[in-house]
């Protein structure tokens, strides 16, 4: 008995050590990004895995170069990324949760059609609509960071409505009835009774939408007027591809600046992120 217990202990320790090493390997690519963002460009390719010391040390010159490269300042892209992500997520949360409540409380033909179209839209890949969507958005002037949230609401409504509707079914009607009897109109009932109960699902959907919009490349690339507006993924792709000049050092510096907000966000809301992402696993 004692022998098997020590055996178990040894086994667990070995596993712990193994996973500790594997974890180090897992964060190694991020470490490489940090190392190479401080390395002079010509050494990035030849000495990718060495520490930027001595003649390889570039200081912050890669950051300066990346931020001022071309005729588009990087910080502008960062700003637009934040703006589009925050506004789109807020718009999606508000509009789709209201619609999902209406759909789950009113059983009409229109509601049913909207609901099934939403479920259907979840299996449609973006390439199917990308050409026509970008033309439509262009014609209707949804090609700026201030109006693109409408496009995100439209293309992202499916998953959000699906997730909210699933949760609405579990809310007991009695609470809303009590509110109505106490004299609340539908708007107050929604904002003061339904919305607070909805909080866990709101957080999950928010996480999914934030991760989608922040990292999205093709939709904003095709929809936005690129001469005026870029987001971080568009800017990084542009840095690497434009003029046939590949400056890896500057690209890595901008990659690092692009993932720092993501890592801070992850460390702050890790619990919610993992839960939200697991809840969104229904989407194929």
């Amino acid at each position, binding site marked *: 008995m004692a022998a098997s217990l020590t055996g178990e202990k040894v086994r667990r320790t070995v596993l712990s050590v193994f996973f500790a090493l594997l974890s180090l390997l897992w964060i190694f690519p991020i470490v490489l990004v940090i190392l190479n963002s401080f390395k002079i460009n010509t050494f990035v390719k030849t000495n990718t895995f060495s520490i930027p010391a001595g003649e390889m040390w570039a200081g912050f010159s890669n950051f300066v170069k990346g931020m001022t490269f071309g005729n588009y300042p990087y910080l502008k892209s960062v700003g637009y990324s934040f703006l589009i992500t925050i506004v789109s997520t807020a718009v999606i949360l508000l509009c789709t949760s209201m619609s999902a409540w209406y759909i789950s409380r*009113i059983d009409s033909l229109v509601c049913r059609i909207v609901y099934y179209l939403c479920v259907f839209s979840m299996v449609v890949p973006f390439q199917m609509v990308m*050409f026509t969507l970008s033309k439509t958005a262009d014609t209707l002037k949804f090609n700026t960071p201030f109006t693109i949230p409408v496009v995100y609401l439209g293309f992202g409504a499916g998953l959000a409505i699906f997730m909210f509707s699933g949760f609405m079914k579990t809310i007991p009607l009695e609470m809303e009835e009590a509110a109505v009897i106490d004299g609340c109109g539908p708007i107050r009932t929604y904002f003061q009774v339904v919305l607070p109960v909805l909080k866990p699902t709101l957080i999950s959907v928010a996480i999914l939408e934030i991760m989608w919009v922040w*990292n999205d490349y093709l939709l904003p690339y095709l929809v936005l007027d690129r001469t005026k507006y870029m987001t971080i993924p568009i800017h990084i792709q542009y840095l690497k591809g434009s003029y046939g000049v590949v400056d890896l050092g500057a690209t890595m510096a901008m990659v690092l600046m692009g993932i720092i907000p993501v890592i801070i966000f992850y460390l702050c809301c890790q619990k919610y992120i993992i839960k939200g992402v697991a809840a969104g696993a229904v989407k194929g």
Partner: protein
Amino acid sequence: MTATKKKVRSQGGGLRSSLIKKPIKHWFPLFMGPTIIAFAIGFVWPFIQGIYLSFCKFRITSDATFIGVGNYIKAFKDASFMHAFWYTALYAVVSVLIINVLAFAIALALTQKIKGSNLFRTVFFMPNLIGGIVLGHIWSMIFDGILAKYNTSILLETKYGFWGLVILMCWQQIGYMMIIYIAGIQAIPDDIIEAAEIDGANRWQTLVNITIPNVMSSITICTFLTLSNGFKLFDQNLALNGGQPFIFKADGSVVKTTEMLALNIYSTFYGSNTAARGTAQAKAVIFFVLVAVIGLLQLKFTREKEVQQ
């Protein structure tokens, strides 16, 4: 007494719920209006127009003329598209197998109360938050850093591009699938496992006869998720090597050897030959059908599993 009370209450609930419905109904424009309008602009109209344009010859959406199924025939005859299809299918099968086996193994180990398992979970999940374009550039730097020592590059060999993409996607997706598997494993009731232990089952027997049958629903979800992610892959493909290396054929056509379906559709749409846009839209419809079939199969299998439980 309590039974009658309950009955009265539920009846009352039914009567009163019409009390909520009536006032809400008048607020249709506020509750449904914005979503319906945006949904029509962002999905319904582009989708319908997309289906129609796949039967048309066009350069811009307003100069379309109906030509029937010609675009589809061209799409199936397009060597680069067929190559992209088989390449994508091969990639999807390989990545589904590797990602799921590794994610399941890690999940199994991390549910055994080992020290630091929460920290390991956090680390393994982290790459999932980084966007595809950024991931592609990080890994192209790493692979080129390694391959430069052998005087070659990820852009020069198809096999480097293929395995490079598999490694990249493992790094991104193992953590995600691991989370789903961990949830599945933790949902297995302890008494089943204890009963197996008392009956003298060894580790391997417990895994094969208890754990795996009980997490079949997680396995189904993860298999379909990795499968459809594999088919829809775009950003990583574009940023890692953009379909290189290219083969230039005698008839002037180009086959991009590591180009996947989504990227092939994109480059047909926005390539220099704007006359090929009809073909591109037909390819997009074929792609949609393919992805939708995977999605519907997923729905069917997960529903069946739910019924069984």
